[in-house]
């Protein structure tokens, strides 16, 4: 664990020179909130905007779901077994991320790295499974250009996949930062954001799993 942070005295309640009471949360007249609250809050807002992007993709998928243009329907192409494995990987990944949060709270470098590695590997497994699904569909000629339905499907699920991939890049950077910089407050806040992001991707996946795959194979 690096002790470099001890030389940089950034106490948490400092916020651009606001030395408000430590408990300030930014409500009412309490004065500026702490950095941790501000950063977490800002990232929450970002996640909400991301949810709106997904909402648009869900809406367009719903509009285009029946527009198969003579191509395959949802029922014909969805492989629920593979999707079940994907789901399991992603949920496991989120669980590992939860473990990492505990390790970070304990400031245990080894456990943190271990838990984050597990988070990354399960996430990677998800991405590989999803890629194989996409590759298989493409190989049968059912790529996104085949029909508007497939366009909507690939975009919605692919957008989630791109998010997970970006998250993996972030995760790698995060691990390097914990290793090089230790448990500094600013890195702790960054990790707070990462874990929110990672759990958020689970929430989106649950929606995709139910509304795309389950509904698609039943109807």
């Amino acid at each position: 664990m690096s002790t470099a942070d001890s030389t940089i005295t950034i106490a948490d309640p400092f916020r651009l020179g606001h030395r408000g009471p430590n408990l300030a949360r930014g409500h009412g007249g309490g004065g500026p909130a702490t950095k941790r609250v501000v950063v977490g809050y800002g990232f929450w807002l970002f996640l909400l905007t991301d949810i709106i992007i997904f909402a648009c993709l869900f809406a367009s998928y719903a509009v285009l779901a029946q527009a198969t243009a003579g191509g395959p329907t949802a029922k014909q192409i969805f492989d629920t077994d593979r999707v079940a494995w994907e789901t399991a990987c992603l949920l496991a990944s989120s669980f590992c991320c939860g473990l990492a949060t505990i390790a970070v709270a304990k400031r245990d470098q080894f456990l943190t790295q271990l838990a984050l590695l597990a988070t990354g590997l399960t996430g990677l497994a998800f991405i590989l499974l999803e890629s194989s699904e996409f590759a298989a569909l493409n190989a049968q000629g059912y790529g996104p250009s085949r029909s508007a339905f497939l366009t909507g499907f690939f975009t919605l699920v692919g957008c989630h996949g791109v998010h997970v991939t970006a998250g993996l890049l972030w995760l790698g950077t995060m691990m390097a930062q914990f290793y090089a910089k230790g448990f500094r407050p600013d890195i702790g806040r960054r990790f707070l954001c990462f874990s929110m992001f990672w759990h958020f991707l689970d929430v989106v996946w649950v929606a995709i799993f139910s509304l795309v795959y389950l509904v698609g194979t039943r109807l």
Partner: protein
Amino acid sequence: MLGKLSWSAIPFDQPIPLIAGAVVVLLMLGALALVLAKGWMPYLWKEWITSVDHKRLGIMYVLLGLLMLLRGFIDAIMMRAQQAVAYHAQGYLPPEHYNQVFSAHGTIMVLFAAMPLVIGLMNFVVPLQLGVRDVAFPTLNSVSFWLTATGALLVNISLVVGEFARTGWLPYPPLSELRYSPGVGVDYYLWAVQISGIGTLLTGINFVTTILKIRAPGMTYMRMPMFSWTALASCLLILAAFPVLTATLAMLTLDRYLGFHFFTNEAGGNAMMFMNLIWAWGHPEVYILVLPAFGIYSEVISTFSGKPLFGYRSMVAATLFICVVSFMTWLHHFFTMGAGGDVNAAFGISTSIIAVGTGVKIYNWLFTMYGGRIRFTTPMLWSMGFLTTFITGGLTGVLLAVPPADFILHNSMFLVAHFHHVIVAGVVFALLAGIEFWWPKAFGYRLHEGWGKATFWFSIVGFYVTFMPMYVVGILGMTRRLQHYDVAEWHWWLQISSVGVLILIVAAGCQVAQLLVSYIRREELKDITGDPWNGRTLEWVTTSPPPVYNFAVLPQVIDTEYYWELKQRAFEQARLSEEPKYEAIEMPRNSPTGFVCAFFATIIGFALIWHIWWLMIVGLIGAYATFVVFAWRDVPEYMIPADEVAQQDRARRAARQHILNTGEVAWQ
């Protein structure tokens, strides 16, 4: 190697864009040469380009907005000139060019002129009004600005390299699909708007967090100045609406780049979905612009009437009312699509319901003036111009909200006149008033009143002469975006309209003259007190221009219009409040992250437009590296010692004390 890019992308055969482009390039090179020759580069780099100070960023946003306003205005002049002469003739602009001009005009005016101006004023004013030292995420703020600048740059590059979209300011498919617009114009539009849109989205996150989480102690919601309230409402709209834009443009991009079928004519694509999605962003976008404008008018009218805002709570309620309802009206942009009586009626009614919120605001402004002592300075004149013009614009807006009336007015010049009535009078007048109002705070000297008033009068006359004839030709059946026509009745109305543009050119000249004259005579227009207008909100507490940390000690707000109360007490007791205890202040360090990020965004955008894939990968790696370098830094902040703070604040107090002693105040 260079994708689709080759020499033929430069319009050597079209003198107008070529000359315009050459002039722009020469001006930019000239400015760069001057900066380098004078040795200003280190100053610009340290104090401006890498600055994360909300005031500096606000000023840069406003500068960008003003430059683009000029560019958009030149497009407008070209359009009016074309329609004045293109009766039974082709005019001087072929359709290929005319269509680019009106597309660029709309895109630039809404996204690269009005948006930067609104966001610039929010940047400058909101932290000062809330009594804090910066926004929640200062470096992110710089990233937002530079991404917006990237978008503006890409639009302007399209003038010389390739072409701009020829599809209107909202690229409706199928026209904007690859089959019907195979050129790079739509791609320029998509990447410019996408990149700047991400910048705007980040601004929204930044300001909602700022306003909700880091106000000065005691600054409860019901003590927030009106402009900050409207900025909050506007940023909430940004959060809810801009992701829709991002998603919609991404869909169109996938159609164009990877052969997807969201909106195509083939394989089940559905172009109507684009219209719904784009207006689910586009209509709130109007309110993103106009709500802060309402905030500016509230501040200006209250200050120059010498009264607090009438019905403050009512105004807050009306603002949030508009904020919510603006999301339920998008379908009125295409009543003529045939959605049926129920749907059209529902959206027609929801649209006119917005007029309730707006009406309440107008009446509250009226009663703010009632019993006031009104000083007709330039910002107040703009506000009066707004009130009268906006009421007319609202009237025609309600007509368009009535579906059967829209069935004969949709897409007509009447519509064009309507939205210019609300956007020019609502937003542009507000921005000019706001710039005038907060200019002394930003630069320490007031703008010249005479030239300002000349600008106002030429603008208002020019505005009416330009746009009233458009209502008429709209009623005479004229649709918009016509490159030529052969209806005699339209011709002379359009000629009158172009005379109006000439008057507006004079107004623009006066505006530029005002800035120059004021700069030259800045010593005599100097604002020593920091409170040139007898202001009421916290930004007038501090010096003009404010120190980097805004306030030596954070204000402890105990009342609405706290600064006004403080000032009255000081006058009554003929002395200032006790000197506070000064402490060292921690401020964020400058960072080139925003600039470097935008540099790579420009590369990525340009590479994608021209299909230069290797360059795109280079840009992506560069952007990622920028983030990592930023994340790796160890010392994000620096301290300003208490002595320095005390010294500067004592100078401010001395200036204030001088007013108390001598009673020499500009505004009395």
